[in-house]
């Protein structure tokens, strides 16, 4: 049985992040290709390739999303952000043709989250990115749903592997619903169970002993 008493802060999904969500914090740790549009004095040590004291204007560097979001301003340019290649024309065409053939876990794993976050940065491609992200979700929905309704004892690892973080969360929600129903059908629903925390805690302790 899943531990019901602990429910983590859910991710914001879309353009707004949820401040305390661990998922959103990890999403905003993903790196984006950026170009500095002004110098950053005294921060040269952050750039491995350069041994100058400053980060000069025009440096190409990768920055985590949170930093790019924080530094980015429409009025006074200190930074410009390029969409990563998974959101550019080439991949958009691939996703448009058949979203189901793509391994979004490898491409992400926060494909939808990052795609939505990119819209914070001005780009002529934004409208198309938003469209691709939405259509990809819709196009893959059937597969996510069918996977989640798969027999619980079946090996789902191959089905889950190409799912992005958001799809995985949906997959788990679907499986939980199915599991609860099947438990009821099998007559075990009224049974009081040991807490999942207790069971897993004991497993972990056993694992430590054996290690």
């Amino acid at each position, binding site marked *: 049985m899943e531990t019901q008493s602990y429910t983590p802060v859910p991710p914001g999904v879309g353009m707004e*992040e949820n401040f305390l969500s661990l998922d959103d914090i990890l999403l905003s740790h993903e790196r984006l290709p950026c170009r500095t549009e002004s110098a950053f004095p005294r921060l040269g040590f952050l750039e491995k390739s350069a041994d100058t004291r400053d980060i000069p204007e025009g440096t190409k560097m990768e920055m985590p999303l949170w930093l790019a979001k924080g530094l980015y301003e429409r009025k006074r340019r200190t930074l410009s952000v390029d969409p990563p290649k998974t959101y550019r024309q080439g991949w958009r065409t691939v996703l448009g043709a058949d979203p189901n053939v793509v391994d979004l876990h490898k491409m992400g794993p926060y494909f939808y989250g990052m795609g*939505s976050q990119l819209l914070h940065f001005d780009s002529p491609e934004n409208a198309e990115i938003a469209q691709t*992200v939405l259509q990809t979700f*819709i196009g893959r929905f*059937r597969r996510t749903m069918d996977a*989640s309704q798969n027999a619980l004892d079946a090996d789902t690892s191959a089905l889950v592997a190409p799912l992005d973080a958001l799809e995985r969360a949906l997959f788990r*929600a*679907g499986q939980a*619903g199915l599991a609860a*129903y099947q438990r009821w059908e099998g007559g075990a629903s009224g049974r009081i169970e040991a807490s999942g925390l207790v069971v897993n805690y004991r497993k972990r302790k056993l694992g430590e002993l054996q290690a």
Partner: protein
Amino acid sequence: MDPSEVEFLAEKEMVTIIPNFSLDKIYLIGGDLGPFNPGLPVDVPVWLALNLKQRQKCRIVPPDWMDVGKLEEIKELESKEETFAPIPSPYYMELTKMLLNHASDNIPKADEIRTLVKDIWDTRVAKLRLSADSFISQLEAHAKLDNLTLMEINTTRTFLLDSLNCMYKLRTNLQPGSDKSNDY
């Protein structure tokens, strides 16, 4: 909701029993029950019926629809119709399970009934999935859930609501100017 909670609600449905004991009318918060006379049919909630049955105090009369002929008609209709066909009881699945598990000796052709109800359930759940998919793929904003039962909705509730929420958020992305930037 846990399915056991749905079952709990189903236990309030009325069912006819034939008691083999006598007892005056009893007065409960949920309503009056009885009087009970040996051999005379009386309506009681399922929870009481099952309790009496377990103590061999009564025979349970299966509901009208719990009948091979009727269920076959329903199954037929369900597979023909594209929408969800009307179902004889909002708790058909729960009642079938409870009555068959505890009173199968009072229900003729119990095994056939079990299979038929399972078939009906499977057909309806497959339909539910199909309509969820078309709901998402056509970017619908609302859907009619006529004739769906609580147990059916319950198995897919979290999944469907979370999916719709995702779709809504990703759709909101399409509207530029909705940019509420928060610099964390």
